[in-house]
Each structure stands twice: as structure tokens, then as C-alpha cells.
């Protein structure tokens, strides 16, 4: 009783804030094209503004890279409701596909061999990622959530082990240095500034694809699976097919981001693709609000900025330990705001209990 009354009071106190937020959201809904164009324009101008120091541009590229990654991962836990702990495996597959093809086929200018061109490698890497997504997903997506999560995790660990140990192919722990940057015609994307616009384009492309997917028949099937598998199946949705498609698309975006990463940073090594990277990306979509596009991007922006600022601010001994904060964020969010910062749908809390599996309810 007491608690309920308190909650009521709190609700009353927060009411004006809520109304303001609702108005803001409604305005954003109504003027969405204008808001979007303004945001993209602002992003285009950022490097030329007084804010655009080399450090800021570097962090911005990182933010956008992780936006692509987080949006890619979001398809599986966010849209389809399956926990994927091995996303970074696909990121690594993409990066190594790009790195190896570039080193083998691209000339010094990164253009000579057509197979070494970034614009050929990008879709190839995405396809390669999707292929592994299907190979891994088809046999394992029949399992319930927990088991599937563990399999994906094992897969990403195996990917790291293989690229560490198959020295003849990947040079193992020494990594692949000297990967040429992308080029188009005669123009080489040699500077951070040009890479900034390249990744900005990739983010726009990813957002567009994700938005169209979420509105499509495919997306609706995913949401149905997320909300209630049994009901979805009853409505004639082939669970396995739709889950495999989600997994493959997610993997393709991971690999795509990986190929950008390889050509941007120009050096890749196995320990860039460790398990904690997956958790970091997962943390972004949880923070932003699973399933939402805006929230996911916001989560990526916040966490990368936080991480990079902490890297500069913290004493060297504590830099590695900044993940402590991310762990805390995950725990607190699940406890107090399971829907994330920008909840995309009403989080199913409590109500589900009565309908849970045997033994799940109380």
C-alpha cells in the first residue's frame, strides 16, 4: 500500500517531465525527415567545426563503427529475442577476410587487383560472414535461448583460436600489418577525415536497411518470435527459417564492419576479437534499449565516448579496469530500467510469469 502510494506521488511529480518528453517524441515523429537530415548534416559538418579535432574525429569514427556493429547485433537479441554472445566472431571473420584479400590482391595503391578493392571486399566479407551465420545458425537455432547463447560464445572463441593458431594463413598472434586503406578511382582514403565520411555513409546505409527490415514482413515475423515463440509458430511463422535469416543478416553486418575496421586501422590481430568485445557491443544495445534503432545508436555513442574518455582520463593502471563500469551498467540497467534509455516496446515484465514454462512461474 505504502509503496504504491509513494509510486503514485512519484508519478505525479514526474508528470510534467513525461509530458515534455512525449511532446518531444511526437515532434520528432512528425518532422522525422527534417530531424534526420539535420542530424546527417551536423555529422557531415562536425570535422570542419571547431569541435573537429583529430581526437574527436577518431572517436567519432569509432562511434560510428560501433553503431554499425551494434545495429548488426541488434537484429538477433533486439529484433528476434535470442541472446548472441559470439557476434565478435563474425566481426573477426570480416576483418580477416578483408585483411587477407587486401594483402594478397591489392597493389601498393590498394587498387591494382580488382579482388583487392575495398568495394569488392566489403560485400565479399559480408557474404562470408553470412555464410558462417547460416552454417552455425542452421543446426543450433533450434535450441532454446541459453544453449544458443553458449554455442555462439563457443563459436567466437573458436574463431579467435583458429586465427591465433593457423599461422600459415593469418600469421597468428603477430597479426596482419600493412593493410592498404580503401581507394576509389585514383583517390585513396588515406586520412581519418576521408574514413570519417566513408563510415558515415555505412552508418546511413545500415540505418536505412535496419529501418526497412523492421517495417517489413520479415521484421514483423522477428518481433512475433521475440514476443511469443509459440504464438508466432501458431500463426504459421517458420521459427527456424526466420531465426537463421536474422542470424545471417546480423553476421553479414558484423563482417562488413570488420572489413571496414581492417582497412581503417590497417593492422589486425587475434586479440582484437576477444569475447569481451561481444559483451561490450551487447552492453550498447542493452543500454540504448534492445530492439530500437535510435536507442542502439545512442548506446554505441555513449559507451564508446565514455570508454575513450576514460582511457584518456584514468591513470594507466586503471585503464584496463574501466570495464568494471560497463559491468555495473549492465547490472543496474537490468534491475532498474530493463527497457534501456530509449525503450522500443513495453518491456514484458512480470506479466509473463503466469504464462511461463512449467517451473518458471511462481
Amino acid at each position, binding site marked *: 500500500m505504502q509503496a504504491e502510494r509513494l509510486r503514485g506521488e512519484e508519478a505525479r511529480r514526474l508528470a510534467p517531465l513525461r509530458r515534455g518528453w512525449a511532446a518531444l517524441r511526437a515532434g520528432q515523429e512528425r518532422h522525422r525527415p527534417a530531424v534526420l537530415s539535420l542530424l546527417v548534416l551536423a555529422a557531415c559538418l562536425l570535422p570542419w567545426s571547431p569541435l573537429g579535432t583529430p581526437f574527436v574525429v577518431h572517436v567519432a569514427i569509432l562511434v560510428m563503427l560501433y553503431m554499425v556493429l551494434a545495429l548488426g547485433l541488434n537484429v538477433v537479441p533486439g529484433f528476434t529475442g535470442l*541472446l548472441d554472445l559470439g557476434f565478435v566472431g563474425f566481426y573477426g571473420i570480416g576483418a580477416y577476410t578483408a585483411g587477407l584479400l587486401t594483402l594478397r590482391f591489392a597493389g601498393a595503391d590498394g587498387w591494382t587487383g580488382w579482388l583487392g578493392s575495398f568495394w569488392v571486399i566489403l560485400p565479399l566479407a559480408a557474404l562470408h560472414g553470412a555464410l558462417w551465420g547460416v552454417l552455425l545458425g542452421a543446426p543450433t537455432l*533450434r535450441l*532454446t535461448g*541459453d544453449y544458443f547463447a553458449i554455442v555462439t560464445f563457443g563459436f567466437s572463441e573458436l574463431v579467435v*583460436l583458429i586465427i591465433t593458431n593457423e599461422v600459415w594463413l593469418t600469421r597468428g598472434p603477430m597479426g596482419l600489418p600493412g593493410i592498404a586503406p580503401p581507394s576509389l578511382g585514383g583517390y585513396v582514403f588515406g586520412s581519418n577525415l576521408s574514413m570519417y565520411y566513408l563510415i558515415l555513409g555505412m552508418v546511413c546505409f545500415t540505418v536505412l536497411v535496419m529501418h526497412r527490415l523492421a517495417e517489413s514482413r520479415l521484421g514483423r515475423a522477428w518481433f512475433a518470435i521475440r514476443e511469443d515463440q509459440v504464438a508466432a509458430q501458431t500463426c504459421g511463422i517458420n521459427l527456424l527459417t526466420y531465426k537463421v535469416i536474422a542470424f545471417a543478416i546480423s553476421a553479414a553486418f558484423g563482417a562488413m564492419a570488420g572489413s571496414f575496421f581492417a582497412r581503417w586501422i590497417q593492422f589486425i590481430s587475434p586479440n582484437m576479437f576477444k569475447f569481451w568485445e561481444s559483451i561490450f557491443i551487447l552492453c550498447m544495445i542493452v543500454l540504448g534499449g534492445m530492439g530500437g534503432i535510435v536507442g542502439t545508436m545512442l548506446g554505441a555513442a555513449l559507451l564508446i565516448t565514455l570508454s575513450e574518455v576514460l582511457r584518456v582520463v584514468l591513470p594507466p593502471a586503471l585503464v584496463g579496469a574501466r570495464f568494471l563500469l560497463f559491468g555495473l551498467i549492465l*547490472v543496474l540497467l*537490468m*534491475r532498474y530500467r530493463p527497457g534501456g534509455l530509449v525503450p522500443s516496446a513495453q518491456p514484458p515484465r512480470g506479466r509473463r510469469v503466469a504464462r511461463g514454462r512449467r*517451473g518458471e512461474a511462481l
Partner: protein
Amino acid sequence: MFLQQLINGLTLGGVYALIAVGYTMVYGVIQLINFAHGEIYMFGAFLAYTFAGTLGVPFYLAMVLSMLCCAGLGMLIDLVAYRPLRLAPRLAALITAIGVSLFLQNLARILWGAQNKPFPHAAVPAYLHETALRFAGVTVSYLQLFMFAVTLAMMASLHFIITRTRYGKAMRACAQDRVAAYLMGIDMDRIVTATFALGSAMGAVAGVLVGVYFNVIFPTMGYTAGVKAFAAAVLGGIGNVPGAMLGGLVLGIGEAFGAAYLSSLYSHGIAYAIMILVIVLRPYGLLGKREGVKS
């Protein structure tokens, strides 16, 4: 060679089994993969290191103290992180578990530093590192004997607790059917707390044993060991305590032979490969029941 690998594998397998039991008990009762369990194992090793190495507590006492502290830590984690989420979707609890694991791992980094630490030799009774038996080209150290004895004793007492005591009966009831157990007046929260305490204490012992055996401890040690132990739990059939013991031994032996005869580079990979194969082909494990795994 063969016999030596078998003995090494059994020693390590016993440790995996000790950790795996913690996973499997918690999973049995609340269907949660407690990702933080590997971190408890790591804390067990580090606490014993602090007690025995820094504070000069006798080794065996340090081991018991570390067990008690980890049991407390396990209960605390459940109370603070998992209990508020009992009614939330499974995904939320799983993500929380990952968060706790990340938090503890980095807490250890802050408390003890990120470098590898040797387990102080002076803190461990000297005879443990001596050779106890030598036959047919096989050497067994006192430490290996000690590890084996401790593992056996822990397993036996756990088996006793689960099958013979009131608490064990209540735990099995909760694992079988939570609602029915609740209706019979079993206090779910108390059972879960006790389960966490018991599992964490076993994990802590494993941490101390491995720390002394390999003579190195580091903040990320719980990660690999945790995964392998989880693989062992899956192998034996998750939720099944004797299965976890068997799974640990099988995995330990498999790893020892794999490293010796196949490739030492891929010794970690063997655990992952076994885990994936088991999950795909026989998700209910070696001893598990055939239900509730496929959707």
C-alpha cells in the same frame, strides 16, 4: 606417457568437476547460467593468495577462509543482482550475470593488479610439491594426490548433502518443480541462497587448487576455467549433479589427451568443440533427462 596423461587429466578434470557442480546446481534451481561463477573461482584463488601469502595464515586455514568468503560472495551476488530479477525474462537475468562477471573480473584487476602472480611458494606446505609416487615411468606429486583427495571429499559431502539432508531434498524439489515446491511450503529464497553458497565454496576450492597446481593466478583465469567447467556441466547434462562430476572428468581427460596427441595449441579449443557438439547432438548431456531443451 598414456598413464601420465590419464593422471594429469584426472587431476584437472576433478577441478573442472568442482566448478561445474556450481553451474549445474544453480541452473537446476533457477535455470540461470551463472556467468559470474568463473569469477568466484578466481576470487577463491586470489583470496587464498592474500590470506596465505600476504597475511601469513597457514595454507589449509587460508583455503577454508577463502571458501567461506566465496560462499558469502556467492550469496551476496544472488541477493543483490539475481534475486530482484526472478520474475523478469530470462534474457535479463543472463545479461545481469554477464555484468556481474565483468564487474568482478575488473574489481580483481583493481584490487590485485592485472599481471600474472605466482602463488607464493613459502605459503604452500613444501611437501606438496614433492613426488609422492613413481611407477612405470609415471610420477604423481603429493599435490596431485591432495587435489584428488580434496575433490573426492568435496564431491562425497556434496552428494551426501543433496541426497540425505533436508536441504538437499528441498533443493531437488525446487529443481524438479518450483511451483509444487513452493506449495509444499519450501522457502525458495533460502534454498537458492544455500545453493549459491554451496556452489561458490566448491568453486573457491577449485580456484585455490589450480592456483597452487599451475603456480600462477591472474584476474582473467576465471573466464577460461568457467567456460570449460560450463562445457563440463553441459556435457554431463545441465542441472544434473553427478553428470557435472562425470563431465568434468571426461573433459579433463579429453583435454590432456588432446593436448598430448593432437595439438597443444588447440587444447582450449577441445573444450569448446566438445561443448558445441554436445549441445547440437545431445543437448540433454550424458546423464541428463531428455526434456525441455528444444523449443
